[in-house]
């Protein structure tokens, strides 16, 4: 047994103008999870401490919260792995969400982004009589199981720096779940799904890998890459800046071994998109004034063949 001090964010949206913090001291085994410590504090000390929980074993995804500033499932985090030498554990609600009460947040934006993706199978035939099974080979299913393991705990969404600056971004979980249906051989709406996720700012992902920390090993970041690749392979929304940017970056590096910034800007915005080009013209002028204007044409680096070999071995779509 050890003394654990839970330093908890307290807030009730109905009555509090600003949040405050409470410290609750309890005697529990250090092997106890943070969630069980919270349950003990609620049962024995203060019944008003509020948090979501259901299964207590990392399959329901309810108890995601910030523990010492890092988002994760409280039921999967032992106290001894997070308490400091004084036994203190700081507990806060997930960031990127509006707090409702203590550790409970408003999940609506997160669910809305799921709903927009139509997160259910849409086969070509309705098969109302359920006469036939829709069969999937083990190999085809294997691609989906990791993404299908998502428990919608929103840990990745809370960790995403792009969501924090632009809430219109679909976020890692929704894109990973879109992948689960985009790659499902039984589904008939691949192009529509790709168009929808592109509308929901798929290309805003900055590939920072923050969402690679996933309690269920879904690896949303790698699924985002897969969905971007599928967008280009299927030729969806190719007139939009996202896919164009990816392709022109690809093209210039393959050609010269370097990023040809002038060409990338033209390729992303569109060579004949005069309005778009005018918008970024001031940036160009400022760069020129500081002597930072990239050269209009680049000579390939000496060993550009090696770069091209890498590209060819990776089967990059062109």
């Amino acid at each position, binding site marked *: 047994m050890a003394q654990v001090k839970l330093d908890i964010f307290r807030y*009730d*949206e*109905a*009555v509090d103008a600003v949040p405050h913090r409470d410290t609750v001291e309890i005697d529990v085994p250090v092997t106890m999870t943070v969630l069980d410590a919270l349950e003990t504090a*609620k*049962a*024995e000390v*203060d*019944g*008003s401490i*509020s*948090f979501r929980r259901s299964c207590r074993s990392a399959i329901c995804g309810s108890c995601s919260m910030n523990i010492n500033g890092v988002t994760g499932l409280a039921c999967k985090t032992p106290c001894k792995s997070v308490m400091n030498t004084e036994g203190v554990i700081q507990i806060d609600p997930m960031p990127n969400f509006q707090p*409702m*009460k203590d550790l*409970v947040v408003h999940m609506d934006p997160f669910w809305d982004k799921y709903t927009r993706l139509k997160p259910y199978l849409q086969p070509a035939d309705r098969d109302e009589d359920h006469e036939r099974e829709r069969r999937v080979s083990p190999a085809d299913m294997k691609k989906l199981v990791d993404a299908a393991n998502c428990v919608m705990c929103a840990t990745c969404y809370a960790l995403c720096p792009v969501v924090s600056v632009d809430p219109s971004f679909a976020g890692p979980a929704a894109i990973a779940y879109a992948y689960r249906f985009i790659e499902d051989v039984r589904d008939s709406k691949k192009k529509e799904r790709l168009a929808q996720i592109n509308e929901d700012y798929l290309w805003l992902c900055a590939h920072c890998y923050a969402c690679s920390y996933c309690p269920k090993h879904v690896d949303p970041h790698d699924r985002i890459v897969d969905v971007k690749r599928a967008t280009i392979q299927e030729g969806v929304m190719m007139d939009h800046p996202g896919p164009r940017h990816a392709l022109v970056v690809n093209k210039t590096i393959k050609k010269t071994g370097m990023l040809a910034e002038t060409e990338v800007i033209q390729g992303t915005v569109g060579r004949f998109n005069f309005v778009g080009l005018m918008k970024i013209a001031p940036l160009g002028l400022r760069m020129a004034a500081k002597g930072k204007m990239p050269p209009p044409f680049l000579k390939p680096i000496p060993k550009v063949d090696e770069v091209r070999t890498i590209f060819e071995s990776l089967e990059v779509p062109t």
Partner: protein
Amino acid sequence: LGGNSLLETIVYGARAANHACDYIKESGEVRPSERTLKSEQARIDNWLSKNSGLRAPQLRTQMNTTMSKNVFIFRQEKELKQAVDDLLEIRKSFDRDVYVMDKSKTFNTDLVHAMEVDFLIDAAMCVANGALARQESRGAQARIDYPERDDKNWMVHTLAWRQQDQNPRLDYSRKVTITKWAPQVRSY
């Protein structure tokens, strides 16, 4: 078991929802009973108005303890009687002494947990009283004092009726209807 129960939840959840929709369409305007609404409101107000007494988590722990100790896998009369007595006491002290600490109207999990424990005590009383009365072993009921299955006397459903401050009234008026699968001795 996870696979079975999940499938069952989805299939029967959909059937129950469809049935409920049909029922509502046929019933026209459905109004909840004023009496029920009033008694529910009184139940909640009572818990919220008090500032001392017993809290639901403590009674839940007492219930868990007696159920795990006395109504577990292998059952016998002496232990089941103990559980029936314990649960009636827990039921009475819940109705008399329970209070909810959190008075907030926002996401009040303390209140929801109290409601859950309230229902769980009823469910536990049904299980314990039903298990004590059923003097045979069948399916998940394994009585070490009555190890055999008794189709002559016990091919009946247990119906339990809630009674204020008493053990539930047990009713065996419904016989089991055998359809496709006739009951057989479990010999594996």
